[in-house]
């Protein structure tokens, strides 16, 4: 029985904190994760991955390339699904780490290789190359889906995700991806920074541009495919972009931006899970938690932006008031 069942927004947090305390004191004995907590964990780990990736992708102006990868990863998923079905005759949504990595590598490599070939060999401009390749690979994936699986749900799941049926395997998967991204951040922070800021300089001081580009893309496609289950491959783009944009309003230091974006993303997702539960309990409204969390994360940027704007206006008004008063005083003196 799910302890969050029937809880509204505030009691959700009560339950959450009490369960966390319990787990802490009992050292995790006899505590089983329920679906809401699984959702929180999966979204938390996804937030971490996307905050790390998002900063570098945006700074390197590869956000639309991440969009491209999110589409082409469907091809990777479909091919690995066909492979699984053919070789292992397994249920689609069972997690198989080897095939997951295979799908990620294959997707990233294929997309980047084809896109770069279009730019270098055919001299097609950036946007056309990206657009041509990803629509092609995505359409190919859809054709394969309709020809071989007759399973429309694969397409829907990939796009919309279905975090409501996430289980502990997904927690492990998203944790693993988060750890990989953290490791990459730790090892390559300065390299990525130089690579994103000044590619020419990076090349001259000895960074391997090819290595860094492919590494970044493999991380992205891995995160995209991992997010396929939680929020769907398209919505993970919100997690990449919105937290960075919001955090950028708060700081100009790259390390802090990444940290703030992870925190913003994390709190937005907890809020959204609680809110989803609230809507279900109080209004009997069953919304997709994945979409709700994507919307909340996405809204963090305009909300923060407006808050800061209003604060600036208030400060300016009060400054005007103060100078007016000062002038009055001076004119009386």
């Amino acid at each position, binding site marked *: 029985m799910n302890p969050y069942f029937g809880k509204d927004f505030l009691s959700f947090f009560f339950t959450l904190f009490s369960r966390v305390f319990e787990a802490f004191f009992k050292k995790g004995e006899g505590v089983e994760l329920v679906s809401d907590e699984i959702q929180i964990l999966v979204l938390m780990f996804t937030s971490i991955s996307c905050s790390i990736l998002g900063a570098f992708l*945006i700074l390197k102006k590869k956000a639309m390339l991440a*969009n491209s990868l999110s589409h082409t990863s469907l091809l990777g998923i479909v091919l690995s699904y066909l492979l699984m079905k053919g070789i292992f005759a397994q249920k689609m949504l069972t997690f198989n780490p080897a095939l997951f990595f295979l799908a990620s590598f294959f997707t990233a490599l294929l997309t980047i290789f084809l896109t770069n070939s279009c730019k270098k060999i055919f001299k097609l401009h950036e946007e056309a190359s990206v657009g041509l390749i990803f629509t092609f690979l995505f359409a190919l994936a859809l054709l394969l889906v309709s020809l071989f699986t007759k399973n429309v749900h694969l397409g829907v799941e990939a796009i919309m995700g279905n975090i409501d049926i996430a289980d502990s395997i997904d927690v492990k998967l998203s944790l693993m991806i988060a750890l990989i991204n953290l490791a990459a951040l730790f090892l390559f922070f300065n390299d990525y920074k130089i690579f994103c800021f000044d590619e020419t300089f990076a090349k001259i001081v000895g960074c391997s541009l090819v290595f860094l580009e492919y590494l970044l893309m493999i991380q992205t496609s891995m995160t995209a495919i991992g997010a396929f289950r939680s929020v769907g491959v398209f*919505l993970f783009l919100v997690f990449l*972009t919105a937290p960075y944009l919001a955090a950028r309003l708060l700081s100009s230091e790259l390390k802090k931006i990444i940290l703030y974006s992870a925190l913003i993303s994390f709190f937005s997702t907890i809020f959204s899970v609680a809110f989803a539960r609230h809507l279900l309990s109080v209004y009997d409204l*069953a919304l997709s938690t994945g979409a709700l969390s994507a919307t909340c994360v996405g809204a963090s940027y305009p909300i923060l932006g407006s808050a800061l704007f209003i604060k600036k206006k208030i400060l300016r008004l009060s400054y005007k008031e103060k100078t007016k008063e000062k002038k009055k005083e001076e004119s009386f003196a």
Partner: protein
Amino acid sequence: MSFLELFTDPLSRGPLIATLFMSISTALVGAIAFIRKKSLVAETLSHATFPGVAFGLLASFFFFSGNDLILFYLPLLFAFGFAILAQALVEKMLKEKKSADVSLCYILSFLLAIGVLVASYMQHSHVMLFKNLQIFFYGQAATMHDTHIYIYGALSLLVALVALIFQRAIKFSCFDPLFSSSVGIKSWIMKGTFSFLLTLSIVIGIRSVGVVLVTGMMIAPSVVARAFTKKFSTFLLASSLFGALFAFLGYIVCYLLENGAESTYSVPIGPAIIVISTLVAFISLLFAPSNGAIIKQMRKWRFQKSCILENILKFFWKTPCQSYHLIHLKKKQFASFSILLFALFKLVKQGYLKKEGLFEYRLTEDGKKKAAYIVRLHRLWELYLIEYLSSEVEKVHQSAELIEHIITPEIEDKLTKLLLNPKVDPHMQPIPIKEVL
């Protein structure tokens, strides 16, 4: 059913003709976007239409009790509105100095998230509306009927007309924005026109191929057209025609697969069109007569081959009465063995060498003249480098080794005139006179 019957049969003509109209307008607008290097804006706009359609469907249900006519038009209107909204939001972000890249990505994913959220509400509470929404997400050309032909036909005609009227202005504003604004073509009018066309064509497109695939309809036809023509108006026309062609081929493929003799496959038309058009795009990029990558490579190889042939002739020319055996020639390292054999074969065929015995070769009279001509070009160039370009005597030979293969008869004429028909080169070697071949 014959091809013509597809156009008249009431079941097939809806999907076919409506899709044809749609692909003409998406290809046309895609061509303009391609020239402006803004192909990916369509991606953001098409994803933005999704929440528009969702809200439109809800509005028609709640405010118009699901009237069929309203249910048809309102979602399209909302879709249009949301696409315009998306553009406004992107503009706002650009003003705040965010890069176009992140602005497009953020707006596209955020609006899509809102759309998916509303969709999830509809999935549980208004299943019929949800199914309607799905049609716009994935496209469903198969269920289009005559009304669609008229509506989308009319809209596509509108797009084509606007593009035609503003053709010249569009051309100038794409290539030379400063010039166009100086002659009075206000850039915001052009931007607005382009915006309007883009949004309209996307809204037309989402019904048959779905939100996600509209971008694909816009890029490939332009890529194909670009490979064949550089003239702007031809390019626009060609893109539209290719768009229609690919739509037609896509439809045929789906039709054949569905009515196959052995097994039937139900394949959605959108992906079929895109796969076909991209494959054709790759073929054009590789093989187009002027710009195809493979064609260019073949020309490079042909040039390399002619260099080898000419180098061999030059070698023979040094001792014109001597014949050489293949083994001796191999040592001179003109090329690998097989290429050398082929080159010698070619030279014999062209009449510049004659074969004496199995692998002995000797220069013919024609060969002598041809070789002399190349040496002439080599030495003229060396002289030119020294007298007019102040090069050093030691360095000119290497340059001439390359340039001798490139100098055209016109350039040779100019050199002869400029250098006053010289007789001797910088190394005191005689310059062969020009003989008629």
